[in-house]
């Protein structure tokens, strides 16, 4: 949804092939890289009615999990829903950096590895209780608690001084947290990097209502009604009624610190992908989130909606296994000689052979585009627009292959390797909807056209979870794989391309690469320009090595009914939820 107040989420996540979930929780930023294919904000005129319910459809074929607490939820759709009642403390600017506009402000003391979080006075929870500094501290105590079973207790979190002791049970609280006064919290970190400005390095950007959940044991929290049924929140709207897994009704939060919302409330409903288009056409919903681009033709001609669109913080890629992960010593071991995909020419040829352009056009109606780099263009300052990428060029692919000695010696139409041995390349690809199967078969076809015999690992598309299982385990059945990352707001390659990173799936590392990866997040990188340079060099290097070939960037589109006013998905000019209005009682049909 086009919410406005989410704080930065710096984490990158693997994106599965279809859903747009991973990136829907991204904050806003000016879209500069792309020539606006779509509007970013609605321009519906008319006199607003007073109040009214905004109906939001969330396209999803499963029920939502319904964990409405930022510290605990795992399903991105929950976050989507929570956005209407967000407990977020910070707001971000167009560069995804935390701004001073939100409830709290951040002061970073780089030298002492300390930050100060200051909250506004007079902010109230949806139940009327005032926001206190304890509410800001509580999330740390939850995540760090020994009974906490989520994934947020991670390397970053351990960067907070005292977090590990607290987690081990040897300390009653996290020593790095210090309440300075009723509105200020000081947090001490082991180290600080530029990530801190994006909400990284272990900083937590949400508050939790201590007066409501402070006394609930952490182990029981996730099933507690305070999380499931009647969460107390800070956002423009507050939870009213919940049909588990299906829909949530919000009503306006009179205590909202920015002022009373103009709408009476919001209804968010899960709608299966099969029925969404028709529902949009009949004006059932005002705003549709997680709308799949492949369905674009189904709604293209509707007159009752405006289709908003913006690039997503996402890229998909073709990865090549050129080594193994050494789990004993926790490091990536690159071995070009010993890998089937060791030859850079072969990798490049595989890249040039893919007709991603056609797929983007036909299947995705140009809502996806050929990616040229591992940094989405949204990150204007980091994105290397100069890179050519591996655009479709089968002739080039073939000549490269000929050059490299991959020629068809036995005349079966398929190339053998330079030693004259049969070459079968095993591709692991994720399953998705029906389109995904077509697309993958089309890619296989592309490769066959240049004489490469690529077959599917396990003979079929692999379900999301086991796909990453296999890829991470360096399954010998996998030579190449097609994955995707949602970059989050911090596109730093650390964690994905570093020498010790398990998620460095292609298992490529080198001194040069490691230099860039480490550099980007080093204290030196507080110098923005230097950091940007490192980013660009990183992108160039990977393009050169072709161990990971970017495939597609994508657009997120949001159909909005013409009765909605003051709605925008622009990263830089976000919608203020409390400002949204409707211009008619009933949706436009």
């Amino acid at each position, binding site marked *: 949804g086009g919410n406005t107040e989410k704080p930065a989420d710096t984490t990158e996540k693997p994106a599965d092939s279809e859903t747009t979930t991973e990136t829907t929780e991204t904050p806003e930023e000016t879209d500069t890289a792309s020539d606006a294919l779509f509007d970013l904000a609605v321009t519906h005129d008319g006199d607003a009615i007073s109040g009214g319910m905004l109906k939001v459809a969330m396209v999803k074929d499963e029920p939502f999990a319904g964990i409405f607490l930022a510290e605990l939820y795992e399903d991105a759709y929950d976050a989507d829903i929570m956005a209407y009642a967000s407990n977020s403390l910070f707001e971000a600017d167009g560069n995804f950096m935390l701004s001073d506009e939100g409830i709290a402000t951040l002061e970073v003391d780089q030298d002492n590895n300390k930050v100060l979080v200051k909250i506004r006075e007079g902010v109230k929870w949806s139940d009327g209780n005032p926001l206190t500094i304890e509410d800001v501290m509580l999330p740390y105590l939850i995540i760090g608690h020994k009974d906490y079973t989520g994934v947020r207790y991670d390397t970053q979190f351990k960067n907070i001084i005292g977090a590990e002791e607290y987690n081990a049970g040897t300390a009653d609280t996290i020593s790095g947290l210090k309440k300075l006064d009723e509105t200020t919290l000081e947090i001490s970190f082991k180290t600080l990097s530029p990530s801190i400005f994006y909400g990284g390095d272990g900083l937590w950007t949400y508050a939790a209502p201590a007066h409501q959940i402070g006394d609930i044991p952490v182990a029981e929290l996730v099933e507690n009604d305070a999380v499931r049924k009647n969460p107390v929140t800070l956002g423009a709207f507050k939870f009213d009624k919940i049909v588990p897994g299906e829909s949530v009704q919000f009503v306006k939060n009179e205590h909202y610190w920015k002022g009373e919302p103009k709408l009476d409330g919001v209804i968010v409903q899960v709608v299966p992908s*099969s029925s969404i288009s028709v529902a949009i056409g009949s004006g059932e919903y005002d705003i549709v989130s997680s709308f799949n681009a492949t369905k674009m033709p189904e709604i293209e001609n509707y007159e009752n909606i405006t289709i908003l669109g913006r690039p997503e913080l996402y890229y998909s890629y073709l990865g090549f296994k050129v080594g193994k992960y050494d789990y004993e010593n926790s490091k990536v071991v690159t071995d070009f000689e010993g890998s089937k995909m060791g030859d850079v020419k072969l990798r490049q040829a595989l890249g040039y052979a893919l007709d991603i352009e056609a797929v983007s*056009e036909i299947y995705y109606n140009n809502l996806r585009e050929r990616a040229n780099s591992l940094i989405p263009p949204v990150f204007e300052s980091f994105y290397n627009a100069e890179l050519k990428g591996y655009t479709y060029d089968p002739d080039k692919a073939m000549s490269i292959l000929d050059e490299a000695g991959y020629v068809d010696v036995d005349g079966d139409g398929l190339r053998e390797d330079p030693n004259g041995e049969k070459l079968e390349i095993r591709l692991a690809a994720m399953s998705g909807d*029906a389109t995904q199967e*077509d697309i993958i078969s089309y890619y296989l076809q592309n490769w066959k056209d240049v004489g490469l015999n690529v077959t599917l690992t396990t*003979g079929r598309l692999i379900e999301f979870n086991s796909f990453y299982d296999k890829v991470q385990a360096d399954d010998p059945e996998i030579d190449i794989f097609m994955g995707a990352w949602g970059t989050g707001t911090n596109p730093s390659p650390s964690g994905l391309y570093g020498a010790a990173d398990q998620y460095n799936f292609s298992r490529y590392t080198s001194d040069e690469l490691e230099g860039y990866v480490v550099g980007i997040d080093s204290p030196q990188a507080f110098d923005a320009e230097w950091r940007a340079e490192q980013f660009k060099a990183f992108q160039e290097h990977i393009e050169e090595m072709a161990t990971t070939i970017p495939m597609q960037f994508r657009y997120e589109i949001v159909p909005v009914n013409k009765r909605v006013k003051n709605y925008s998905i622009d990263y830089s000019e976000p919608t203020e939820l409390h400002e949204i209005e409707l211009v008619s009682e009933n949706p436009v049909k």
Partner: protein
Amino acid sequence: MVSVSNDKNSNIASSPPTGFQVIFREFIKDKLALVSLIGIILVTAYVFIMAYLFINVDEIMRVSLRDKYAAPGEKFLLGADQGGRDIFGQLVIGAKNSLEIAIGVTIITSIFGIIVGLICGYFGGWIDNIIMRIIDFFITIPSLMLIIVFVTIIPKYSQYDLVLIISLFAWPGIARLVRSKALSEGKRDYVNASKTLGTNDFIIIFREIMPNLSSILIVETTLNFAGNIGIETVLSYLGFGLPPSTPSLGTLVSYANNPLILQQYWWCWLPAALFILIMMLAINFVGQAFRRAADARQRLG
């Protein structure tokens, strides 16, 4: 007693119970069943001949993006799907696959079910007791769910695995039916007679009892066959059927999940849906004719 059994005699005496003649007469009487039977045979033959001799699956399944949703016409008899693949070819191959699966499952489950059922029904006693417990177990467990679980855990699964998985859950029903019939048939005096005449049990089971159950078995097999076409398509529809890029009727029909296709690109799903419908109807009509032939009371001819 006297007149009852005599009545029965005279009833049966008026029409011989020998299989083919009766069946033939029944079909002559019931034109719909006849047309259905001929239709099934022709369609099946056509499908198999086309599928094995004239249609190249790789060719059919080749994605041709420019032909996305091509309408029926010159190039594609029944149009093309979103991958620009020929619907007609997919229909034929899909029909072949569905039929093969249905035939495979029917044969396996029938053979297994009939043998187990006959043995249980004839011998009774502890053999029967144990096997019936097993059968009860199979019948009460949620088979669709377990089939789905199976499909997801088989690493490299193919059409044949699917046949085996479905069969695993389908035989007990047949076995139970055959058992109950064999049980009552086994009580008839000709079985006792054979026993006293020195015939061994297995000959009695397979040469005496089985032929007498043949009409019921034919009926059941026919109706099961129809059902098995159904289960394959349902599984494919749910996404747990045939492996991907194997054309399947269920997959074709599942295109209708998308309202756009349902309405505008009807050629993607409608032919497959009609094919299933007509096939099931036809098999059912044939099955009903067999059933009437098997049951003297219902005969038309």
